[in-house]
């Protein structure tokens, strides 16, 4: 007689039951984990600030995350003025320019919400809004005529603050580039200030060669981040009459102007302070102010530093002209290089107060004080400041070039979601061309391909 088999159905039922239980628990656990992990990124409340909201700045403490080169503007200028006027306090955290946007996103999405006000790059606006890191200030701005929006420079106002019909901040630092030169060196080597990029090349080569390397004819900022190498490329792109996007928002990186702009960067490298790829903001400014380099296309506030004996060896020995032109283009045009707005953090616990601070910090008096003080890193954002005789007196001989740029139609960078990635992809390819790994057309074709994949 065969041995009876164990009751299979009951065992099977038990196993199935166990499996079901386990798989159900696992699935539920995964979903719960995904949900809870995703929830970890919350904490932002970027809902619109209503019209008429009026925060009280009296005795307020405002926490700000700011661009490193702007630190003095907040700690040494705005901070004391804020304390005197309101008895309040500014707590300033300065972040290196290449990490500013990501830190702001992380502060809000990480749930820390430590800051009230962000000093933001305008080309990071899309990413910041996508991360709910900036509060929608459309109604609040529209409802407060005291802000004086009509006074903000038309060339920067919308670019710095407007995205998809909504405003997320107020212009704080109207950044454009001009070309500074060392007048003493120019005179010594018989060189005239350039009006075209070809003349710039010739001047750079002559000075570097004739000086035996004791002075470099040009300083080219080529550090591989958008806000440095991207600016140097776009300066030339504007000069050659090109743009980053066409009227329909499609990339135009393979245009003749773009190729000429990159080729110019490559060609001038041998005559530039070694090497462009190693040259960032601080190295470039230091080399120019110490007299090591004869030309530098950079932000307009350098003139204030150049006149400060504490930081400059070229006081009264420099000059400035608008960015040169190139190719068939004869119209000088600058670009909105970097450029900053002040916005209210989506993680702030006192959004009305933060908005009131943004209004105060971007007001005419503050903008004038900052734009007229060496080392603040701030340029005019208001027409009244740019056109005032007092600012002209402070900016000196740079005034005309600065006005020409900001009152014109500067070339703007993209600022939609993913714009920072687009610019990083572009500068990666530019850097490979500067390094000699690929030629200019190839580099720009690759960048164009990447941009087309991202934005069509």
């Amino acid at each position, binding site marked *: 007689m065969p041995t009876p088999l164990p009751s299979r159905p009951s065992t099977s039922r038990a196993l199935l039951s166990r499996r079901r239980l386990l798989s159900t628990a696992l699935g539920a656990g995964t979903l719960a984990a995904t949900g809870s*992990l995703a929830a970890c*990124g919350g904490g932002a409340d970027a809902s619109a600030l209503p019209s008429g909201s009026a925060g009280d700045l009296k005795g307020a403490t405002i926490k700000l995350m700011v661009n490193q080169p702007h630190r003095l503007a907040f700690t040494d200028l705005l901070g004391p003025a804020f304390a005197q006027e309101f008895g309040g306090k500014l707590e300033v955290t300065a972040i290196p320019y290449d990490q500013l946007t*990501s830190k702001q996103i992380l502060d809000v999405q990480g749930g820390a919400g430590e800051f009230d006000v962000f000093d933001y790059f305008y080309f990071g606006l899309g*990413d910041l809004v996508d991360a709910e890191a900036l509060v929608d200030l459309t109604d609040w701005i529209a409802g407060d005529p005291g802000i004086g929006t009509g006074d903000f420079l038309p060339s920067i106002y919308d670019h710095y603050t407007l995205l998809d019909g909504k405003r997320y901040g107020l212009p704080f630092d109207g950044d454009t580039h001009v070309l500074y030169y060392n007048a003493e060196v120019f005179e010594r080597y018989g060189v005239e200030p350039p009006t075209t990029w070809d003349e710039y090349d010739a001047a750079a080569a002559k000075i570097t060669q004739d000086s035996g*390397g004791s002075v470099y004819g040009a300083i080219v900022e080529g550090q*591989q981040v958008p806000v440095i190498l991207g600016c140097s490329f776009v300066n030339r792109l504007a000069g050659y009459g090109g743009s980053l996007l066409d009227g329909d928002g499609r990339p135009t990186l393979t245009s003749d102007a773009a190729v000429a702009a990159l080729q110019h960067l490559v060609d001038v490298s041998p005559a530039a302070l070694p090497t462009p*790829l*190693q040259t960032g903001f601080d190295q470039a400014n230091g080399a120019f102010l110490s007299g090591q380099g004869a030309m530098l296309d950079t932000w307009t506030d350098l003139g204030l530093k150049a006149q400060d004996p504490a930081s400059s060896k070229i006081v009264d020995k420099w000059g400035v002209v608008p960015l040169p032109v190139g190719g068939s283009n004869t119209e000088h045009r600058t670009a909105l290089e970097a450029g900053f707005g002040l916005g209210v953090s989506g993680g702030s616990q006192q959004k009305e107060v933060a908005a009131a601070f943004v209004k105060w910090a971007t007001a005419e008096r503050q903008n004038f004080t900052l734009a007229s003080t060496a080392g603040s890193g701030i340029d005019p954002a208001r027409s009244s400041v740019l056109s005032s005789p007092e600012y002209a007196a402070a900016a000196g001989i740079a005034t005309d070039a600065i006005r020409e740029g900001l009152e014109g139609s500067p070339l703007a960078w993209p600022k939609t979601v993913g714009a920072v990635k687009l610019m990083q*992809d572009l500068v990666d390819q530019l850097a490979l061309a500067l*390094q000699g790994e690929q030629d200019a057309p190839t580099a720009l074709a690759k960048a164009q391909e990447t941009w087309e994949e991202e934005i069509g």
Partner: protein
Amino acid sequence: MTSPATAATAAPSPAPPGVPPQGTRGRGAGRRAVPGRRRPGHVSSWLAAPSLAGLALMLVYPTVFVVLLAVTKSSLARPLQRWTGTDNLVDAWESLAFAGSLVRSVVFAVVAALLATALGLALALLLHARGTRFGLVGTVLLLPLVTPPVMVGVAWKLMLAPVGGAFTGVFDALGFPGANPLGDGVGAFSALVVMHVWQWTPLVTLLVFAALLGVEHELREAAALDGAGPVRTFTSVVWPVVLPNVLSVLLLELVIGLKVFDLVTVVTQGGPGVSTIVTSFEIFRTGMRGSYEIGTAAAETLVFGLLVGLLTTAVTLLRARAVRAEG
């Protein structure tokens, strides 16, 4: 005096055929032998609970998070948006610098680890030849080790600055006027290896010196009596003893080399071009600077983790073989 529990374990009563002796049948057997008493050395598993909870919090949670990020559309602003499977992996592989960064990371770590270990071993032997105390010289040699990597990077960057750098005159004197190691790809990569080796060689020296102190003096004396010279004594007596330690140090150096980030960030920022983009820096670039593609950065992290696991396993196996050979 022998405790009852020990006696019960040490001298089990004869068991009937087919029944395992007491103490070998299972965990409960010993406990039943002496009710209410625990065997010496027995520790309740529950005591490990805090450590396991800490491990789960610090290791499991981040790992699960990284895996989830790697298989979902995730940006810095919006993590875990939707399931994407292997898309992030493909994106990483097709990106400008990731595949190359894996090669650079391995080359950097292997070359730096071998150089640091060789130099550190040589220094340790020299120090040991002076005596059994580390002494002032040894302490001075440790200075790079206690210097923050960021400061090491800043100092070297200033010294190698093409204009006004401290090495400018040295390069001129050596017949290389205008030399700028950080200005080209191979030079920059090599310079980073040199900086890294400069900083981490002292760790090898310290650990190998300690291992040398463990070589019994009698062994050396016996070798000398047998007519062995310094080289033979080292290869036949000292080296077999310290080899497992040297391989442990090599493993440590390898891991440190694979993790290098600070130096790259401070000195070259991955440039010129992509010449010095190692994987840790590429992950940072992908996730935190420029693209904010956290999902792709997570996929890169997983691939890199796998690679690190393979490398360290190889060295661990080598070490195990060395230990067996010695034992």
